[in-house]
């Protein structure tokens, strides 16, 4: 039996059994439901006029068609994902400290980094599954409300944007893992992701969002008409941030005193 395979199995099992993941799935379901509702209201202007505030907000999404809808879903993943993927990562890494089970993961007959690798792989799988769930649910809702402009090329373009936005957002989970280990629990990383979302809004508002890792996925997804603002160098900022988080977490886990 391969230690890494066993460790991933145990991590997935712990995650599957937790209430947290079910709550997160339920909470994240709100994103496509909201997107679908906006599209439905836009598609039915007479209903939008009667709905007041919701109707006014729904105008932000632009036209009621598949390209707009995919854009809206991507933005939800980019902003909501920082929180949601951050929560999942906080829990996977921080719960061992909060539940004081970390000591059972230290003196095991395989390299110490195996557990951290298994946790990162588990977080990646869980976050990708969450995103896929949002995308599939979103597409089903789009089909249900019969949005116009459906074509294979629009679908593939939309999926590519969603996929890259997901990867960028998931990549930013690695510093969250580091904060969970360093903070020895899941409260510090939860605070960290909330701060990052707030900072990304402020920094994007003053025009430097393209250089702040946590603002880049949202800019990439095309929020506020920012298509084209993000280049390879900006994506590299996200990748470098992710690698720093990854390496620092491994380093911390290997060399820190686990007291």
């Amino acid at each position, binding site marked *: *039996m391969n*230690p890494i395979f*066993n*460790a991933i*199995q*145990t991590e997935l*099992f*712990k995650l599957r*059994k*937790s*209430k947290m993941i079910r709550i997160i799935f339920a909470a994240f379901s709100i994103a496509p439901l909201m997107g679908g509702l906006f599209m439905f209201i836009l598609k039915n202007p007479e209903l939008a006029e009667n709905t007041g505030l919701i109707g006014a907000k729904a105008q932000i999404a632009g036209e009621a068609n598949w390209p707009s809808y995919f854009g809206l879903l991507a933005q939800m993943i980019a902003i909501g994902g920082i929180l949601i993927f951050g929560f999942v990562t906080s829990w996977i890494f921080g719960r061992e400290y909060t*539940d*004081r*089970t970390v*000591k*059972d*993961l*230290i*003196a*095991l*007959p*395989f*390299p*110490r980094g195996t557990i951290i690798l298994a946790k990162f792989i588990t977080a990646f799988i869980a976050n990708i599954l969450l995103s896929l769930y949002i995308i599939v649910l979103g597409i089903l809702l789009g089909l249900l409300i019969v949005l116009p402009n459906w074509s294979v090329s629009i679908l593939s373009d939309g999926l590519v944007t969603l996929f890259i936005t997901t990867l960028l957002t998931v990549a930013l989970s690695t510093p969250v893992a580091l904060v969970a280990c360093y903070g020895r629990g899941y409260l510090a990383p939860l605070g960290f992701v909330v701060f990052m979302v707030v900072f990304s809004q402020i920094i994007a508002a003053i025009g430097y969002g393209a250089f702040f890792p946590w603002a880049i996925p949202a800019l990439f997804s095309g929020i506020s008409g920012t298509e084209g603002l993000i280049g390879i160098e900006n994506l590299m900022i996200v990748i470098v941030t992710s690698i720093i988080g990854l390496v620092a977490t491994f380093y911390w886990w*290997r060399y820190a*005193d*686990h*007291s």
Partner: protein
Amino acid sequence: MQAVIQTESLSKSYKGFHALDKVSLQVNKGEIYGFIGLNGAGKTTMIRMLLGMIKPSEGACFINGKRVSLHNYSIWKDVGYMVETPYAYPELTVKENLDISRRLHSIRDPLVVTTIMEKLNLTRYADKRAKNLSLGNAQRLGIAKALLHNPKILILDEPVNGLDPAGIVEVRELLMDLATNHGVTVFISSHLLSEVAKISTKIGIIHEGKLQQEISSPELNQLLTRKLLINTHNQPSTLETLRQEGFDSNLSKEGLIELQSQRAIDNPENIARVLIQHGHSLTKLTVEEEDLESYFLRATQAKGGN
């Protein structure tokens, strides 16, 4: 004989505070080493360093002759451990928690979980969530996790904490059986001194981070002071008689006459005969041995020791 567990000048300092100071000890195969000390004496720090959880500031630990380090992770194959209060994943059942330990130790056979639950009387709690376990059963679960992979070395921190008297006896017998009949080496830390004395073949007393004393079980019996206690209807007169007969004696706080001379302790019947000849009515004549707690307090010169 090669030591199974060995430490060499093991020290740990935190910002100038010496949690552990140059502790050198060795535990041989099949021995049960009782590591006793007051709260904060350095027991858990020692155990964490033995398990590689914290790095020594100085010195080294060896398990089966191999230095405890990040690279020598294969040594943990033979080690079962429990550090401080055992914690388990609260939302998982006893069986699921043990199954996680089984997988992490790469044991294919799921029956080991059933076997260990039977051994520690956890079978009827198999489907109970860990968060709903009593302290005693949580302790049993911690011991079960430590024993699951049949380790040749057991490192246990306060293993009988929270157990009821029957549980304490069970764990004591289990550990003694493992050491005596299966050659398992046990390192056990505790503040329950008399409990440790019952099972240990060697005892180390740690105080303020220093290994104060190492004693084998036979030596311990010799080190414990004994005294002859006497009670009669007329204690002052009895004291006078004993003095006249050449026995140095005094009155204890409890009002009993104490004799500490070896001559009196070895031959209490002589004392009884002398006192009866002088017309004293004996109501108590007993040889009392110092308990380990008193000895420990005396050895560490802590407050409350005599």
